[in-house]
Structure formats: structure tokens, C-alpha cells
């Protein structure tokens, strides 16, 4: 039964992922659609960051915000993503001690 669930989950996850690989060759998008698709990464990043970041420590949403602010500052200084991630982890670790 669990295997049936896993196969079902795999199919409904794989199909939406793979369909665009066939669509982009068949369909010629007008310029505004291309611009729309090119803006999707930035919009997706926004939607993935907030409000999810509030749930890093669900009972204290400020912990996530603080980690995020530190990440923003480190990234503004031009640090490598790995250092941004480490800085945020350390911040949250110290705040929740």
C-alpha cells in the first residue's frame, strides 16, 4: 500500500515537472510571456521566503525574521551564499540558546 502511495506521489510530482520540457519546444511564446517566465525566479524566491521564514521557530516568529535580516546584511556585503547561510544558522542558534 505504501509503495502504491509512493508511486502515485512520484507520478503527480514528475508530470508537472517534466511537461514544460516538451511544451517549450512546441509553443512559441510571445515576448511578454518570455518576460513573465524570466521574472518567475525572483517572484518564486519572494514567495518561498515569506511567510515561510516566520515558521523557523513557529512559537517565536521573530527568530526567523532576525535570521533573515542577518542574511540580508551579509548578502548585501557581497558574501558568498555559503557564508550567508552559516551566518544565519549561527544567529538563530545563538538566539534560541
Amino acid at each position, binding site marked *: *500500500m*505504501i*509503495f*502504491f*502511495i*509512493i*508511486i*502515485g*506521489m*512520484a507520478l*503527480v*510530482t514528475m508530470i*508537472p*515537472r*517534466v*511537461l*514544460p*520540457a516538451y*511544451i*517549450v519546444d512546441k509553443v512559441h*511564446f510571445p515576448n511578454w510571456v518570455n*518576460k*513573465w*517566465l*524570466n*521574472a*518567475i*525566479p*525572483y*517572484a*518564486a*524566491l*519572494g*514567495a*518561498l*521566503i*515569506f*511567510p515561510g521564514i516566520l515558521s*523557523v*521557530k513557529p512559537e517565536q516568529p521573530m527568530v*526567523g525574521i532576525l*535570521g*533573515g535580516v542577518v*542574511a*540580508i546584511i*551579509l*548578502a*548585501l556585503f557581497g*558574501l558568498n*551564499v*555559503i557564508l*550567508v*547561510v*552559516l*551566518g*544565519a*544558522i549561527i*544567529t*538563530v542558534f545563538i538566539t534560541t*540558546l
Partner: protein
Amino acid sequence: MTSKVASTTTEDTSSARLRMIQRGIAKGIPIMFGYLPIALTYGVLAKQAGLTVVEITLMSVFVFAGASQFMAASMMALGTGAMEIIIATFVLNFRHFVMSLSFMNRLKGFGQRWKVPLSLGLTDETFAVASIHTKEAKQEKGAYFYAALILTAYTSWVIGSFMGGILGDIIPAALSQSMGIALYAMFIGLLIPSVKKEVKVALIAIIAMLINYMCQLFMSEGWAIVTGTLIGALAGIHLLGDQEA
């Protein structure tokens, strides 16, 4: 003379390939940081929900979508029916269709041999990193960059789940909670350089955040992220000039 020229070209090609693979792994490391603790936690949770280590690992191998795997494990623990779990997975993961459409449109020149496997490796995180690195799509052997990036993430996800299933809770709670910020920090770390180049990018992201937030008040998280992403990017049509697009 001819053979010498030919061998130099082969060397160039293979070193270009190697360079792309190295770059891909390097860009995949932050995802690994984020995935390992989450995968371990998923393994532990799924074990508690009654899955065997084989089932836990196979789900990671075939589904490779963290949030839906957590959801499935907790629904199984509650004794939810198979169809409900599968439909809920579809709803939660449909956002990858939107992301894949954007990513595949960038990789138009790659051919199905690359596009199909790369599309299957798309998660929120691999998409975020891959789509911020657009220049590799136009470079020689660029496909190896994206493949190495995705495989780094995929391997850490599968191994992490397996280890969570066999070892149980090995990360101290304080540390695993702190590492919960990792992927958000990575998203921020990817977004900020683009904002520095073009401030309007921040506006697109903020619109998407607010719409996602408002939508989550009355719809599921999966659809809220899709709606926020689509509308936020719609603003991008007017905000971004042709050079960024």
C-alpha cells in the same frame, strides 16, 4: 598537425566539462547544508509514522520533494487514505510546473536528452539556484553545471533520508532548529545580488511575498505560492526591461 589540433580541442571540451561540474557542485553545497538536516528529520518522522527504511529512501528517490514527503508521512501516521495523500501531493507540488516552465524556457537550446532529466530534478531549491545562474545556459557544456548542481542536492536528500531512517534523531534539537533557517538564508543570498544589480527585482519579490501571505489566509500553501509567484512575475513584465528579461 591535424591530430594535435584535434587533441587540443578534446582537451578543451573535457576541461570545460570538468569546470562546469565543479561549479555545479560548488553552487549545490548551500542546498546540501539545507537539505541534510531536513532529510534527516524527514527520515525520523517517516520512521515514526511506520515506514520502513526502504520505503523512506524510495520515497526520496522517486518523489524528491521535501514538503510533500513530510506531509505524506504525517498523513500516513494519521491513517489518511492513499488517494487523499496523492491529491494533496499534486496540489502542493504543482508550483514546480510554473518553475519548470521558466527554467526549461531558459534551456531551450539543450535538447530533450538534457531537458527531461534536468526538469525531473527540479525542486524549490534547485530551481532557485539554477535560475539565478542563467549564463551557464548559454555556455559550452553548461548542461553539466545544472546536472552537477541537481545531483549534489539529490544525493544529499536521498542519503540524508536514509540516515534519518536508520540512525533516528542524531542532530540535537537546538541545532536542527537553527538549521531550519538555512534554506531561507540561501533564498535571500540568491535574491540580494540580483536586487543589487536591479532594484526593481526587490519589488517583484515583495509583491510575490505579500500575495503569497494574503492567499495563505484562505488557500493551501501550494496554491498560495503558485498565485504569489505568477502575479509577482506578472509585475515583472512591466518592471524589467528587455536586457534583464
